[in-house]
């Protein structure tokens, strides 16, 4: 588990190995102070609000996170949570239209035709001309830029949204003077959205997919890797969706999906910066309090990944240099091995004095880079993957062979004091460095709260990371870095 920032309280007992304990203590104190200032409030409807006041300027960062992502999508509907995220920028019944009543009726008419088309039925010539007419009428009613302008006119900074396999997050920075507007607008996006230009936006998403996956060697390798590693769990699916699924998504089913998942108990609002805890919380209650709680909690996947009985391997061919992902199935936090696996991965490939970087990149010069990732999400058991990029003329297979040998040696080796120290300090410093930005903090608070139902879980994780011993590292290496448990995805150069 690696987060944008990880708050921890250092409760480990310092052994003589911790020669830099002063720095860690200092870090710990800073973070403990931060922790004492974070306030979490749950509204009557179940929506959670997390507030942290900091800074000197009259600005704040706001993040609205929803516990929904690719992992929640039904089969054949991959990409629907991402499509929904795009729709959240299209306005509401009062923003983005010149005449909502007329627009609504036209959108309903259009939807009938588009549903037909999505089911694979061919529209008649007459139907097609009707669709054309509806679109022309809608274009006259729409005020496409009004949603964006409402934000930009008030000085919105870094406004964006992301959808991942586990979570959807909408975020922005604003001058404090726009606070009430932002709270109102964000609640309106959920309460009263209009899926304008849904079918045009579907084309835009297809372009996004071409850029991120279809034409991207690393994107295609990653998609194939996950698809191979997981047999039935939805972690096997791409967040952006398969092209054929996206092309069939309809506005109606996207709205139904939104109703299931965008309920207050599944939403976290984080506010960081110039925030008056009492006064501003009242504003949040006033607007987000309007969201109705649902008797049905958001459905979660019941799929349990099949036990892997042997190594899986897949090769794709692409006009690109060779590249490999070697991934091992592993448990995620709160499993006790999660932190040890991260520390182990840091020791192996975490920086330019890590074992595999020194060996493959610096000394033997058979790789252009080695790195690790923990993917695709954190709600369910995931993969610890090593990305190995062979350097010409080394091949994927040669590098994998060397990697295997190095891992076997690692399992039998002794971990040096410096290696443990560097890995843990890297975790601490990366954590701390994220604390200088309102937006980073807001996003991280929301993430922790959505994934673990308690943002302070990140504190506990860090405690565990700092308590990891050399023996733990060797133990998890022997337990998880085994061929039966792994998937190799190779990208070979297309001739």
């Amino acid at each position: 588990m690696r987060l944008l920032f990880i708050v921890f309280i250092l409760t480990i007992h310092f052994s003589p190995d911790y020669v830099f304990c002063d720095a860690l203590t200092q870090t710990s104190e800073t973070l403990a102070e931060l922790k004492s200032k974070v306030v979490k409030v749950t509204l009557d409807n179940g929506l959670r609000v997390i507030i942290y006041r900091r800074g000197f300027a009259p600005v704040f960062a706001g993040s609205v996170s929803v516990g929904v992502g690719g992992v929640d999508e039904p089969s054949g509907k991959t990409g629907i949570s991402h499509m929904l995220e795009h729709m959240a920028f299209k306005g509401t019944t009062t923003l983005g239209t010149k005449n909502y009543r007329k627009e609504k009726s036209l959108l309903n008419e259009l939807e009938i035709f588009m549903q037909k088309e999505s089911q694979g039925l061919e529209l008649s010539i007459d139907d097609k001309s009707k669709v054309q007419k509806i679109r022309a009428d809608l274009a006259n009613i729409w005020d496409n830029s009004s949603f964006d302008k409402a934000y930009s006119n008030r000085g919105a900074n870094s406004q964006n949204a992301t959808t991942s396999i586990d979570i959807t997050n909408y975020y922005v920075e604003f001058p404090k003077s726009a606070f009430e507007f932002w709270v109102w607008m964000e609640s309106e996006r959920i309460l009263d959205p209009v899926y304008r230009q849904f079918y045009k936006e579907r084309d835009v998403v297809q372009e996004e997919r071409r850029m991120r996956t279809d034409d991207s060697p690393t994107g295609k390798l990653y998609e194939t890797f996950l698809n191979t590693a997981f047999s039935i769990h939805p972690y096997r699916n791409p967040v952006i969706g398969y092209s054929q699924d996206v092309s069939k998504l309809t506005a109606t089913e996207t709205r139904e999906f939104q109703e299931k998942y965008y309920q207050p108990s599944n939403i976290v609002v984080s506010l960081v910066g110039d925030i008056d805890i009492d006064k501003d919380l009242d504003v949040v209650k006033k607007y987000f309090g309007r969201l109705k709680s649902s008797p049905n909690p958001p459905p979660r996947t019941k799929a349990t990944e099949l036990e892997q009985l042997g190594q899986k391997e897949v090769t794709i061919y692409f006009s690109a240099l060779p590249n490999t992902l070697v991934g091992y199935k592993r448990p995620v936090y709160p499993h006790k091995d999660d932190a040890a696996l991260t520390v182990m991965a840091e020791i192996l490939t975490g920086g330019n004095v890590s074992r595999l970087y020194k060996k493959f990149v610096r000394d033997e010069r058979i790789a252009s880079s080695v790195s690790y990732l923990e993917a695709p999400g954190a709600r369910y058991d995931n993969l610890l993957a090593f990305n190995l990029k062979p350097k010409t003329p080394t091949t994927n297979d040669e590098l994998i062979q060397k990697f295997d040998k190095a891992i076997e040696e690692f399992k039998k080796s002794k971990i040096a004091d410096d290696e443990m120290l560097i890995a843990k300090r890297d975790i601490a410093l990366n954590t701390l460095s994220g604390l200088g930005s309102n937006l980073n903090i807001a996003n991280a608070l929301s993430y922790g709260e959505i994934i673990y139902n308690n943002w302070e879980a990140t504190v506990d994780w860090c405690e565990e990371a700092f308590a990891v011993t050399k023996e733990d590292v060797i133990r998890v290496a022997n337990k998880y870095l085994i061929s039966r448990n792994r998937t190799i995805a190779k990208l070979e150069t297309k001739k």
Partner: protein
Amino acid sequence: MKNFLIILICISFFGCTSQTPQDLPITPVKSFDIPEPISWKLENGIKVFLMEDNELPFVEGTLYIRSGYLNDSSENLGILAAMGSQMRNGGAGDLTADQLDLELEKLSANIGSSFGAEDGSVSFSCLNTDLPKVFKFFTDVTRKPRFQEDRIALWKSLQLQKIKSRSEKSTTISRIGFNQHIFKGSVFSEVTTSSRIKGMSRADFVRAHNKFVRPNDAIITLIGSIKEHEARDLVDKYFSDWKPTNEKFTLPPEPKKSEGGLFFIKGPFSQSAAIIGQTGPKRDLDSFFKIKLFNSLFGFGGSSSKLVMRIREDLGLAYVNYGGIATNTVFGKNYIVTQTKGESVGEAIYESLNVLEEFQTELVSNEALEDAKRYAQNSYVFLFDSPSKIINRKLSLILQDFPPDFDESYLSNLHSVSREDIMDVAKQSWDVNSLVIIVVGDDKAYESLKAWKQKLPPELSSQEIQVVEFDEKVLF
């Protein structure tokens, strides 16, 4: 202490009469005191800016060097940038490269170095308790890099691998080709090739370091948990004996106005990358606000800008689409970038040029211009909302040779831009007669470009599409 200027101008966009939340008025950004950095100058010319901030136990610092590869002769192209990256990686002072790597990793401290077109920098970040140690390493990297041969060899081998991967992305190919074409025959057009990398030696790096890394007009910024006396002691100890040099650096002449053309580079991409553009105006204080607002209205303003609204929102043709004018000290460039499926690249180009033509022939609406101003004004606070941003703002004004009181009149200058000014920028900076269009894509992209070419302005439609190859760079 400077009082925040935004309070001076109050705009109420929606008016205050309505009670519905949608009509929540745009209220002015609250006034606040912007902390002022402490600054002083050393005898050798180094200016220091310090901003103490004790929120986190961190310190970060940067030394900016006021020269870049534009100051070097064209036959040395690529060397200064390479040297910049190797200052940190090749060992420094008493430490070998391996020792320096290990020491920094043990402290989880970062030191980085790089050189660009007009300036270079060496920067560090560390916990405040490690500052004395890390500041010494930072100084050694700046003043006493070792340029170890084995690290240069490693760097070269990685660079050669990187060059091999250039053809993997349509956007990389189009960007390289665009710069090559518009800056043809000048130092700006050069692309680092494998033969150039192979030809570099340690002696080249030592020469470049001796010549360009100097205290003349250099700037050190320090931000974080550091007291003034600590900062003064460290800077004095490590930098006050650094002697300036007498050599005067010059900049190359402004590149010639680029020529137009239609180029196609075939590649196995389902999504094509298109760039339309040409050489543009260089940076200039008089035109700064006009170009800033033009960019916001035209294609750098996200969904609020007309280009993005047309290509992405209205037509659904692209996920990535933007355009505008980028200015620099000696050169500028105008460009429109679109990534779209092969079948629609011709249409995307055609529509992009229509948007440009609209800016050249029609005044933007009052409402659009006021919206752009509101955005610039209300987001202005984000240049000053953290100690590092306050320092960076000061620094960027110095590096761009803008006057120190630039921010005093920022908002009034912004508001003085008229609709006619926006049209003037579009007309004077963009010349449809000399636009170059570069498309990288598959056969469908070629067919689309061919089909839509006839609809382009006469200067472009009369041209043949030239099919060119790519091998490390575009073979025009």
